[in-house]
């Protein structure tokens, strides 16, 4: 099971809980996340592509 959270350049990123078979598939998903305003990062683990995202919550209710 991949790590739910990783640190990338000192920032915490969270796994989207998907395992992507190809880089192209991962990139497509990443583009969708970026459009939503998330920072994204992709890691390759044992041949699978993992996407990690984060977005700081500006307003807390």
């Amino acid at each position: 099971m991949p790590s739910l959270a990783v640190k990338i350049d000192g920032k915490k990123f969270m796994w989207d809980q998907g395992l992507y078979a190809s880089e192209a598939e991962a990139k497509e998903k990443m583009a969708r996340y970026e459009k939503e305003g998330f920072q994204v990062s992709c890691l390759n683990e044992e041949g699978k592509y993992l996407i990690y995202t984060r977005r700081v919550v500006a307003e807390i209710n």
Partner: protein
Amino acid sequence: MKGSVLVVGAGPAGMRASSELVNQGFKVFLVEKKPTIGGKMAQIDKMFPSNECSSCTIMPRMVEIASNPNISIIAFAEVESISGEPGDFKVKVLKKPRYVNPMKCNACTDCFGVCPVGGVPMEFNLGRGASKAISFYSPFPPRKALIHPDKCNYLINGKCGDQEQPPCVRACKPEAIAFSQKPEVVELQVGAVILATGADEVKTELLERYGYGKLPNVLTALEYERLLSGLGPTGGVVKRHDGREPQSVAWHVLDSASPIGIMTAVTEALGTVEKNPHVSVWVLCEDVNVSRESYNDFYCKAQEKNIAVIQTDSVTTAAGADGTIDISYRKGGKKEQLPDIGMFVLVPPLAASAGMQTLAEKIDVKLHPWGFFEKKSKNTHPIHTSREGIFVCGSALEPKGIDDAVVQACAAASHAAALLGEARGTETATPPEKVFLPITSEDEPSIAALICRCGPNIAGLLNIDELAEYTASLPYVNQVQLAPFGCDGVKIREMLSTKKFNRVLIGGCSPKTHEDVFAMHTQGGGVNRYLMETVNLRNHCTWVHSTDKKKTTEKAKTLMRMGAGRVALQEPLEDIQVAVTPAALVIGGTPSGIACALKLVQAGLRVYLAAKENDLGSLKENQSKFVQRFIDELQKSEKAGIFTGAQLGSVQGFVGNFKAEVITTNRKEIIEIGSIVIATGENLKSASHEGDYEKDLFLQRNDKNFFVGMLGNLNPLDFNTAGVFRCGPARMEMGVLDTIMDGEGAAARVAGIISKTKLVKAPIISVVVDENCDGCAYCLEPCPAHALTLIEYMLQDGRIKKTVEVNEALCLGCGNCMATCPKNAIYVQNFKPEQIMKMVHSIAEVA
């Protein structure tokens, strides 16, 4: 230019100067004429005005110094000569023979038992108590045996016992006895010299007039300290010459001009009644000189405990019945008589330490007629001696309290650093990488337990054998050892050298003062320091329940059980490395702030000075020549950024990395700094309404509007907030020279941070269990360090979840978040809920 400093004298001032210098990247040679370090502070029982246990406070500092690879202690040695120039002195040091090789001696004491010569008066105890001809000089480092050449049979007659080898040689397994040792000259090269040779009691015929040397129960204040001290010859029980405890004790302060005498007498009187409330005490003095606020507070509190202070015009003594002393005094022309006094303690004036005249001649430094080191001229800084590059601090300059000596030692370190700034780091060695046993949190715990006797502080107030037996019965505890002082590390390292243990449980002093020292020994034994637990048997048990030995022992058992339960669940952690911003902010254009800023730029460090005045030149008005010169030099320095007409907004961050808002008429600027010094009594933010740096930095003021600093005589310039310091008018009212030295002392504290590229932070910080966190954000508000951030993340099915991110550098490990979280989703490392619950259950189990 050499990057090393010679410090002469290893009392509190010399030790502190050494620590500050080594912390800034300079190599230190610490020369001490006695065989062990600590000076008078190691001999006294409690310090004024904090009433802290002196040896408990200084012992961990001594161990740190003795273990620092960049401090070479040359004990039992004296400086013979200093030639050369500032930046490049050549020093000759004469080491006296111990007749024991300190590199081989393991402090096992096997030689003491077999030595046939006893009854040797103990110099450290000022003649009280007796030792063998081979002994330790004191309980303090360097803990190496020493042979008294004028008492040792072998050194006097060439033979001891009926065998060829003397008994000590046969008993010494590491073969450390070295009868062939001769005096040895050591040559050193250093860039600067700091003299911290202290002061001694003056034992003139004046003392004889009051019966000293004639009546058996008349003694000096320092001699009385050894009777009060738990590490003294009577184990902390004050005893008269005949072995009986006195029912009444009187002090006579012979020097009322300085506050040192009256403060010493009152501290000793307080210590006496704290040990035995049935003893009646009187303090006789010509005048009560306690104008300093902290001294006056202490004096007033002491008086509440029935310590009678009587101002007298004259005092006369005569031998009384049964070893008592008849004391009469005159007050306003009237003659009065004290009741029979069991012991009479004379508090003599202090003068330059013995041998200072000889030292001054050898190193070509002038002395005042009254024996203290003299500065070059009237316009020379008090810390500068008559010889350039040789500085002086502490009681070698004039008698003073330990807190003042510490400030001056820091200031002297700043002066040496300013002289040698460009050679910083050229002679220091990087400590070797720590090697730990491969311990994981999955390994079954195997606990090595150590219980400190701590003189009578612990062992004297509970049944220590019963406690040791109980501790041995606790789960996972595989060995228990008793140690005279666990902080010397001997027993910890001995147990860990077997490689059988993966946890360490210590029952001893407060972790506040001793944890780093215990951790150092634990790591030295190959065990991660976060697999160690310190149980505060002293402050949490014996000191507060000193009257009922049985109940105290029961409580100690509970505490040890709680500690054992917790340490078994601890995990090995790695320290956090944090990069440091190499600059400082000094708040306040006061002489103290200016002196602080100048010393930092002279040492090659970047500094910002925020002053409320619109023109720094205007500060020169009504200032001494010193301050005027400082301002001129500071204004010329490229390393100084000066904000005039400045107010301060909010300050965020942590030691090594702060961000401060500085607001002037033209602009608002955010500056990044690694450390902050408050050198003003005023609040610079008052007009800005832009933030409150005092609140941001958790600073507090007392009812006189001075900033409240860290407790303790050894921390006069520190706040409880790491990386933030106070000096001059931020601390208390003081004269201009004192305020300058305060600022320079603060500069040393700051330089110890910003001269480094990285700081090490303990990993006792919050960790989020993301699986449990639902992003409720309840934890954010209670976090005083603003270390938590709410983040959200996307799941592949399009749902958005929230969790919390911890800024490791900012987190204080306070546990507020843990207490607030309703989902068990955040905890402080090594303070997991199961660890805390284990401790709670331990209380119930013992009950």
